């Protein structure tokens, strides 16, 4: 089957190509003929002056993403779930997931406009007498911007799974609660949230499994040399060293380092989720 051949060529050969990380790549002898250097590039990476910085940025960015972006869809789902009219509910949902389909490039372009020197946010800040900010050139603003825009982009989409879980809650529970005289908040607190808890826990475990992986696209679009201090993550570093500086072997070694940690985290996450009664695979 052609599909198998294509999978083999484009996904499995690169895996084999990871050995480049253990070799000194040179163009003439190619992927599999270059000289073996063992763990040289890994050692070089651990002594890299940027090692600590990109590691810290990756972990901190992901950890903050987890804290701030994780609860948002739950809140949104609870909110949408409280809407009685079906049509209004539909409208809210479709409006909230629209941003998910907008390209990252467009979103960052829009952020550059809204957050620019003369942009909307600075105008509002000025009304409140706060100094104008150069958001994209400020080291301290990178993470808040990244996380804020991610919430805008992803919340509506992520809420879908919670809304689906909510439909699985037995309506009789609500009815009997009404008979007992429970109000809206009590129903949310004692029926809806406990009903969602299994879903929340599974998704949380999965998120922990990916705490070392950052999609490269958005960081790449948002950062500039002035904000590397907080913005540069492992994947962007791999890109710069590997593609732009053509340090193929070194960048591959860094990539392997990241992939190994990711894989271990994923396995751990899966083990934990298995223990809690659900299997990821």
């Amino acid at each position: 089957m052609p599909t198998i051949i294509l999978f083999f060529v484009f996904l499995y050969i690169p895996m084999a190509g990871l050995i480049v990380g253990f070799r000194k790549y040179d163009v003439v002898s190619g992927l599999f003929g270059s000289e073996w250097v063992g763990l040289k590039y890994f050692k070089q990476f651990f002594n890299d002056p940027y090692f600590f910085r990109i590691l810290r940025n990756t972990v901190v960015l992901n950890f903050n993403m987890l804290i701030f972006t994780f609860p948002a869809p739950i809140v949104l789902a609870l909110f949408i779930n409280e809407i009685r009219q079906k049509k209004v509910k539909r409208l809210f949902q479709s409006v909230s997931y629209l941003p998910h389909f907008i390209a990252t490039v467009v979103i960052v372009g829009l952020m550059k406009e809204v957050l620019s020197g003369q942009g909307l946010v600075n105008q509002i800040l000025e009304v409140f007498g706060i100094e104008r900010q150069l958001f994209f050139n400020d080291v301290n603003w990178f993470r808040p911007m990244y996380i804020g825009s991610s919430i805008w982009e992803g919340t509506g989409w992520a809420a879908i799974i919670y809304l689906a879980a909510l439909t699985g809650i037995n309506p009789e529970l609500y009815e009997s609660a009404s008979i007992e005289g429970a109000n809206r908040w009590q129903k949310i607190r004692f029926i809806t949230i406990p009903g969602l808890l299994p879903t929340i826990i599974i998704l949380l475990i999965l998120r922990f499994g990916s705490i070392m992986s950052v999609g490269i696209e958005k960081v790449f679009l948002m950062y500039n040399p002035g904000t590397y201090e907080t913005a540069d993550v492992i994947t962007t570093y791999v890109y710069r060293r590997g593609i732009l500086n053509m340090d193929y072997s070194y960048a591959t070694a860094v990539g392997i380092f990241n992939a190994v940690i990711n894989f271990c985290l994923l396995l751990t996450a899966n083990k934990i989720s298995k223990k809690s009664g659900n299997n990821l695979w």
Partner: protein
Amino acid sequence: MVKKALNFIIISMFFIVFLYPFLYIVNIAISSSHAITNNEVYLIPKGINFIAFKVVLQSKSILSGYINSIVYTTIGTVLTLILCTSAAYVLSVREFKFKKSVMAFFTITMFLNGGIIPSFLLMKYLGLIDSMWAVIIPGALSAWNIIIFKTNFKSIPQDIIDSAKIDGANHYWIYGKIVIQLSKAIIATIGLFTIVAYWNSFFPALLYLTSQGKQPLMIVLRKLIVVENMRGEFMNLIGKAVTVDMDEIGFARSVKMAIIIVSIFPILLVYPFLQKYFTKGALVGSIKE
């Protein structure tokens, strides 16, 4: 009363957060350059004109990006559907002996991959750098889609397939005439999501495409609205259109927003169709994450 007011506040907050950015884009795109620079555009556009759109639609680089994106998206989506449904069909055939190992072969790629550099070196080795196939093929190889298709194909009643076999149908016939015909909904779903994914993707193109004429729209966009601010190609683009009675900075912002509108237009076009299949797609997608 308090309750009603609270509801109203929450609802308006919701719409401000999710809809206002879009309104803002449109307003800036069609307002006059002076109104923009003087911060007069908030809720309604001022001095409505379409010069910014004219500039965008006349731009050669945006036009070629648009055409390239359409080509990549079309070929990519068709290829994805053919590759994934055919693989899924084989996996759904009951008598197929190596089902387990082939399935494992696909599934492993969901968790392990070579990463940027080895993939790049492979493309280089295959001579695919600066070829559109380097952008199209990797996107089409999705173990995830195969699994979804397979699950769907399996839900087709075996009786239908068995009776077709008795009538002398071979696998190609069953695949083309029965399985595909009965799975239109899921094919449409995956197809639409694939269209959006190809249209929005830019990183493969950044890695593998070198010549100007082959860049998809997203790469052109990145250059015009993310990287270049009042310089380079962007200034060439707006330079000709700026006249004495226009404010250059305001007009530049207007053009950028017009570019955004033009680029998300196809997505808005497929959005109503996408919506029909939303929940399904999101559910399978969220398990993936």
